């Protein structure tokens, strides 16, 4: 069953629990210069009317359907997992050319200094296959980051549209 990461910016606070979950799962070695696969942002965006929007965001690999990193890799490290739909990799043959990172619109693949190879978020593919949630989703206490199946996503998507419409029409029962 294909899985999809869903991010709700109205629930995020950039608390970075997801980042901790990712580091814990993937044994990110900061001292060796490694960088976590997931990153949060606490940005202030000045709007045209002079007000400021506080953007709290969490990002990692988007697991694109048509992932440009896959085609960019000259040695075929990257692929789609047919079961989960995540963009996974085997960096045994990685030559550290960083083509994947350059092709990625989000800069998700990371170059690991310690062994000169590419690493990235694989959606915690093995965990998901074993019935667990991705580590970042598991660590998100506010429900901002979720991982659902394609079917769940379609269903929740239609609910979301319906809810938004009810709110727009001001039909929700008060009190």
């Amino acid at each position, binding site marked *: 069953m294909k899985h999809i990461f869903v991010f709700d910016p*109205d629930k995020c606070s950039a608390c970075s*629990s997801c*980042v901790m979950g990712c580091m814990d799962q993937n044994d990110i070695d900061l001292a060796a210069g490694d960088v976590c696969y997931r990153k949060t942002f606490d940005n202030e965006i000045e709007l045209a009317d002079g007000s400021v929007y506080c953007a709290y965001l969490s990002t990692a690999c988007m697991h694109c359907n048509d992932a440009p990193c896959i085609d960019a890799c000259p040695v075929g490290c990257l692929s789609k997992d047919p079961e989960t739909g995540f963009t996974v990799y085997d960096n045994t043959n990685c030559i550290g050319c960083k083509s994947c990172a350059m092709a990625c619109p989000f800069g998700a693949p990371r170059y690991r200094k310690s062994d000169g190879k590419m690493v990235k978020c694989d959606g915690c593919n093995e965990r998901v296959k074993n019935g667990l949630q991705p580590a970042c989703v598991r660590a998100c206490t506010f429900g901002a980051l979720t991982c659902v199946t394609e079917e769940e996503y379609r269903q929740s998507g239609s609910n979301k549209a319906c809810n938004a419409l009810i709110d727009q029409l001001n039909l929700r029962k008060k009190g």
Partner: protein
Amino acid sequence: MTELEKKIKAKIPGEDTGIEVRHSLCAICSPSHHCGVDCYVKDGKIIKVEGTPEHPYNHGHLCTKGSALRNYVYREDRIKTPLRRVGERGEGKFEPISWDEAYQIIAEKLNAVKEQYSPHAVAFLSGYCKWYRPIFHRFAHVFGSVNFGTDDCTCSASMVIANKVTAGTGAGPDMAHANTFLGWNFDGYYSGHLSVLGVQKLKERGGKVIIIDIRQTPASKNLADIFLQINPGTDGALALGMAKLIIDNGWADMDYVEKYTYGFEQYKALADQYPLDKVAQITGLDPEDIYEATKLYATNGPACTNFSASALVHHINGFNAHRAIFCLTALTGNFDRAGGNVPNPATYLHKPAGFKMREHEFRSDRYPGGQERIGAERFPLWNAQFDEIQGMDLLRQLEEDKPYPVRAIFALGMNAKMYPETDKLLRAMKDKLDFFVDTDVFMTLTAKYADIVLPACTSVERSELKAYQGGYLVYTKPVIEPLYESKSDVDILCELARVMKLDDEYLQKGYEASLDWMMEGCGLTVADLKKSDLPVKVPAAKWPVEPGKCLRDGFKTPTGKFEFYSTAIAAIDPKYGLDPLPSYYDSLADQNDEETRKNYPFYLCTGARLAHAIHSRTHETPWLRSLRPNPTCEVNPQDAARLGLKEGGDVELYSPYGSIRVKVRFTHKIKPGVILMLHGYTEANVNVLIGRDHLDPYSGYPGFKGMRCNIRNVQEG
């Protein structure tokens, strides 16, 4: 890679991978929380940590800090063995010694001070950890000293006392039944993460949310219907202004006021001094916003209020500010009523669980008396209401030896950075103490001044008793062996009690026997609890707690009422100038002379929470530190432009008492004129800027969140 290798790499628990999930709790933050954790253990090492899904408190959720628990446990600065100082105090030069030797030295030295001066010349001090306190407190008393003190002298207890002298009890927000939530300094996203869910649920069912804070936060963005960005330190004025609006507009619950409260006329006369335009001017708020927020709170009830353990009471006018807000709950008839604020007394170590334990008796039964505690003379209200020293007077007493000398400190996790003018305290400790023992998990700034340092273990390496909301108790099991030669704090205390032959049955018998005494009557024993790895329901627990007990049986105050006019404060000698009413005064009242205003024009607010930090505990935890690698202050871009500061550049923050060098970050989230700085860094300890006498006269609490300072560019290099 084989399938099994893939599973091991992905840390999938199971017999095939040899990875076992064991339950414990995370004790990085306040004991009001302590979420259940699942530790993934392989070959005796923790390889991953998650929240325990079936835990009745956190239901699998963990915050940023808890999610980094593994990194915290395996920090490189763990103290590995007992140590004896070989260099100067503060130099950090030690040699390893055995536990037996350490205990012998400690026994000999503490007894020597007791003999030469008095038992009270030994102060028993604790840092932020709470879990061992009943044992430690009793230890101090059995040794013969009245001087037991903790971080309570700067955290939370001021609010506890303010509640006590007003209503005889505190009262938490009954979120599940409220229509309006007044989130005064509420920021569950940064501290107390589980509270956010309750506010989200209230909003989903159509409830309204008011957030009052000095900065824009995730709570003001994600949750607030009305957000009041208030001038720092002016909350008391706002609360009195709200009281006036409520009374003048007929929104007060006068039946409630007449039946259950005391001192309304005086309170009304005080509130009358705070008309809307004056309050708007003091607080920097729009009068219409104040009106709308007040109307919503007072007329869309039941309404409950969030109280912060530190945000308000870390102003020198904070004790009264808290009282003024607390009084609104009675004025609107929301105190001790469903959907309002409902008293729910703690069962054990700050956690309410719907049954009684004999924690207080265990601590105080052996109170030796015979001397005034440190700070008693200077802070009489504190002394009358709280059975610990007011440590903010420790520095003075060390320096002056008045009213009597203090010559030894026996500490568990003492944190000198918690004290204003930290450098002066450490100097006085270095010069005046005959003996100083510190016990800690990590080698801290304070531990470096100790003569003997003892290694403590973390929560996942020990057993401890913990109560939880819902009527639960758990006795945790270690998920790994204590690292190196570290030990559980309570074992250290009880082993030392045996070496010192302290005359106490319970300290001699140990932690579990002490717990069995404290929990007697609840229907379970430690042996029963050991049968479960998760919290179990306590037979004697009554949960949920029903509102209405104070209204039915009377308040535990001298008048039996909710006291707008506190008779407990009125009983304090008038020479101290404490007002029985929650009157307002300026939070910089001691720094408003013309010269100080001119030289230190900024309002320094330290320690406003961020998700990755709690005091000094996590700054040296690499994963958490990576989120903000450098000590960094925050200023409004307008101020930055005016002063020519460079984003990310080096600046000096300074006050008449000290200075630190930090990075600067610009943010629109605070008003011009305000500077935020996270506390607890060793290399940039902002509390050196706080004057030792910049204290709230009611509680003795330092004005950590309201202090004059200035900022200037520092040349790079």
